[in-house]
């Protein structure tokens, strides 16, 4: 019945060579652009620097991809996993190894530094010979070839494992990397827990990490086993179990559970900034401000489909309005309290939204992008200009922006500020959900899908567009207000096009029109780089690569909105056929799904 389909050997071979070469090219690239060297300043796992991990992860990835099993096609049996998987992995790793080995020999003999600035002597020629792990170039190149091949083979061998085990192995690797990279966070949390709750957690940090901050051998073992076991045991069942149990509860007890969950969440929240300490809270606050903006831009781009590349303008308007009204040093010099300034922030942002929104009302998507980009630059330049210096302070900005006060208490510390930001974010998230499921939200989405049809169906495009711009502008304005207060000063340089792009990237990578996606996107793309300052220099390189990769592989984002995630109902057409046969007889209950048994056979 079923046949084993063998891909032609030549095709398999060329694919493996291709993967190997791409891996090799990536290895050469990260070596030549200084990433390996920059990252080797940090010890990640006991004895292994981040740079080494980066380099060695290439054969692992290459081997894993090259050794991948054939895709399963219905009606065809796939070849059972076997020796071929590690073998192809090994081959691909070997090819990558040869490439990087050749590069090592090249830079050992020719000085490329005149052109390639980051090919320093420390890579291969002088100690510590980062690329060759301290060996002479010749031996080092050999070592690299061998190491790459072996690791490629190992990674290919993972493909032989049954699915469940394979996932568990991957989880273990992921956990180890995450714990290694997030050393600062993990140890701060453990320390914070001990300080706040008097529970015995700090020694755990000393156990996991050695003095240089690298994950110790014992730590690696524990974390890997933990990741492995959790993946093995966890696999989604608990959630289903909880849901099933919740469904069986009565209304009343369900409400109790809900209140309890809420209470627990609030408690956790109360503790969070204390446990995280001031620096991590600060990072959360930065992410929170971006999250606020991302939620706003999500309405403009995600819901209404208006590609706004000048979103930073509204952020700047919010920040400057706050600064003008709360700083005694500003040109207004009134020095109001923050809360008094908030209505004016809303007003100023809304007016800015109208000013940007009106001229672009009749512009098509791509024109919109470039014009809004222009507006963003216009805003920055005006705030910066000598012309408006008497009002906005020009390049010197406005300092001494007032604190936020709650009653008599100021909230300048990051921990206290966290709550303020949290409240704003919560409001923004609620507003997003509320608007999404409303007349105006539907109008936005209809406009996004097809503007002229939306208008023909009764949507007032002018109102819909302007209101999207206004809501987006107000949320960004809040972000700006909080930003100005948090920093305590505003400078025009904080408001360049990079901010707009970052926010856009956040919502796209996270998942457009999806609040959880936006949250995750912010944490990964804004929070993480703050923690991993090693990456700072390569931040935009990584951003760029990530963007391309995401769009090619997962254009709907990490956590897509529910609607986009829904699978195509392939039984649709079949159901129509089925209905047709039923038409003569009694109609089925509306809403009942066709029974699987009655599905017609495809002819």
């Amino acid at each position, binding site marked *: 019945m079923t046949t084993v389909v063998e891909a032609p050997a030549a095709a398999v071979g060329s694919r493996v060579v291709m993967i190997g070469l791409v891996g090799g090219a990536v290895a050469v690239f990260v070596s030549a652009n200084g990433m390996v060297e920059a990252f080797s300043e940090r010890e990640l796992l006991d004895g292994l620097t981040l740079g080494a991990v980066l380099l060695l992860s290439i054969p692992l990835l290459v081997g894993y991809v090259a050794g991948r099993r054939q895709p399963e096609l219905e009606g065809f049996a796939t070849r059972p996993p076997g020796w071929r998987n590690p073998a192809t992995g090994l081959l691909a790793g070997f090819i990558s190894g040869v490439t990087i080995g050749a590069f090592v020999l090249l830079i050992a003999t020719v000085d490329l530094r005149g052109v390639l600035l980051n090919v320093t002597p420390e890579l291969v020629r002088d100690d510590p010979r980062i690329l060759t792990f301290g060996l002479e170039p010749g031996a080092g190149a050999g070592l690299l070839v061998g190491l790459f091949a072996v690791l490629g083979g190992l990674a290919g061998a993972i493909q032989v494992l049954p699915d469940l085990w394979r996932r568990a192995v991957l989880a273990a690797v992921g956990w180890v990397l995450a714990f290694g990279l997030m050393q600062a966070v993990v140890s701060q949390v453990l320390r914070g827990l001990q300080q*706040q*709750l*008097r*529970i015995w957690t700090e020694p755990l940090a000393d156990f996991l990490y050695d003095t240089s901050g690298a994950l110790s051998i014992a730590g690696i073992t524990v974390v890997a086993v933990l990741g492995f076991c959790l993946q093995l045991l966890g696999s989604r069942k608990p959630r289903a179990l909880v849901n099933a149990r919740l469904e069986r*509860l009565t209304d009343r*007890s369900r409400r*109790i*559970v809900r209140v*309890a969950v809420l*209470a*627990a969440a609030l*408690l956790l929240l*109360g*503790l969070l900034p*204390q446990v995280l*300490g*001031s*620096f991590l809270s*600060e*990072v959360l606050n*930065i992410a929170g401000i971006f999250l606020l903006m991302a939620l706003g831009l999500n309405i403009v781009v995600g819901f209404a489909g208006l590609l706004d590349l000048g979103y930073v303008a509204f952020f700047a308007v919010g920040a400057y309005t706050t600064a003008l009204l709360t700083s005694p*040093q500003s040109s207004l010099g009134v020095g109001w309290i923050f809360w008094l300034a908030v209505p004016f922030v809303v007003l100023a942002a809304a007016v800015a939204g109208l000013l940007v929104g009106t001229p672009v009302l009749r512009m098509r998507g791509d024109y919109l992008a470039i014009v809004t980009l222009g507006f963003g630059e216009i805003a920055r*330049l005006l705030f*910066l*200009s*000598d012309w408006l210096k008497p009002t906005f302070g*020009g*390049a*010197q*900005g406005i*300092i*001494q922006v007032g604190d936020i006060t709650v009653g008599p208490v100021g909230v*300048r510390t*990051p921990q206290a500020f966290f709550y303020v930001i949290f409240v704003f974010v919560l409001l923004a998230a609620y507003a997003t959900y509320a608007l999404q499921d409303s007349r105006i939200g539907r109008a936005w989405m209809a406009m996004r899908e097809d503007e002229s049809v939306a208008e023909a169906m009764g949507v007032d495009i002018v109102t819909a567009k302007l209101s999207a711009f206004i809501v987006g502008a107000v949320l960004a304005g809040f972000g700006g207000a909080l930003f100005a207060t*948090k*920093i*305590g*000063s*505003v*400078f*025009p*340089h*904080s408001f360049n096009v990079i901010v707009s792009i970052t926010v856009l990237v956040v919502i796209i990578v996270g998942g457009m029109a999806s609040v959880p996606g936006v949250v995750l996107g912010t944490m990964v793309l804004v929070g993480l780089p*703050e923690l991993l*300052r090693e990456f*700072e*220099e390569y931040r935009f390189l990584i951003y760029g690569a990530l963007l391309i990769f995401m769009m090619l592989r997962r254009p709907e984002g990490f956590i897509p909105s529910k609607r986009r995630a829904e699978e195509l109902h392939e039984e649709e057409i079949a159901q129509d056929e089925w209905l047709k046969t039923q038409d003569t007889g009694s109609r089925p209950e509306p809403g009942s799904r066709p029974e699987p048994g009655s599905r017609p056979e495809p002819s």
Partner: protein
Amino acid sequence: MSTRRKQFTACLVGVLALIGAACAPEEEKGAGFTPGPLGAVTVDTGAPIKIGLLQAISGDTASLGTDQVRAVEIAIEDKGGNLLEHPIRTQVEDDLCKAEGGTTAGQKFAADPQIVAVIGSSCSGAAVPAMEILSGKGILMISGSNTSPILTSDLRGKKGTANQKGYLRTAHNDIIQGQAAANFAFQKLGAKKAATIHDGDPYTEGLANAFGNSFKELGGTVTLATAISKGDTDMRPVLTEVVASKPDIVFFPIFQPEADFIVKQAKGFPLLADTKKLFGADGLLSNTFIVIGQTEGMYFSGPATPTGATYTDFVGKYEKKFSEKPIQAFHAHSYDAANMVFAAIEKVAVKENGKIHIDRQKLMDAVYQTKDYQGLTGTLSCDEFGDCANPKIDIVQNTAAQKTIDQVRGNVLFTFEPPAR
């Protein structure tokens, strides 16, 4: 179901108990030493004394910060790596040369109770928020390259708007460089009309303004105070305006690459073909700038390059360690700042069986009291607003004879020292 509720109640009670525990008062520690109002740092036996370095180490301004980080490393080596038998450890945080970077890095230092002092920031914009955060925690901050008047004072007794207790600097105040450049242009060159160009950077804008103000005070006229934007390439239109205002000198204290475009395109204008009418500042004193043919004859203002054996010695160590010469103008200032901090620590630290206590208030006071300290950059004395520099400004000229930046720096035409405060 009832068991579930019980479980839940138990959980809730547990969490509440934990919260209660968290709120319990902290036990007091320390015995013989009583900390002052700002608290104190206690360094345990064998533990390092931690110094924060708040410097721009990435992006366009990376060289500014890197240079200072290296200078502090040399200062530590000169101390033998130890202070009061404790190793000195530095923690470098990037200020990104922006207010946001200053905030984040400031919070990171503020979160670490072991940080005794912070040397930085590189950029004035980052200093504003960082100063506020660190000052609030009582952490001493001393910068080797901030020059904005708002951080300290206008040198006439008016406190700068951003000034906070606990912030000091060994770099000169912009006002002085403005005075120096204006004095040179007006008195030595005899220029009566000047044009200024800045690029919207707070540093260049502040300096161009300071120059303009001093020039006017001396009796000159500023015929055009204009600006360009970072990223501009075509300077000919703005130069057309400059030329139309017929200045005797053009002061543009900006950076590369915009300054490259200005000097290269200026040669197309007869009025500016004489490169002696072009006047830059320390941001342009770099090897990649002076190699441009059209900079020959140009003047530059900048902090005086230290002289003397100790400085030669310092440069020797620097070159040996980093296999290049100092790359920016502010390394010596940070070296001095580090040494002032070390001296103050040595002065106020209280030893107690292997541990040392450093009282933050006393540490600050000690630095403020610095008087006639002999550093690489001259004799340093701190005023009440934190200006400690011995602000000598050199005006140098790039002529055909000068091939390297050091030679240009050495070709001093005029040294400005402000009248005693």
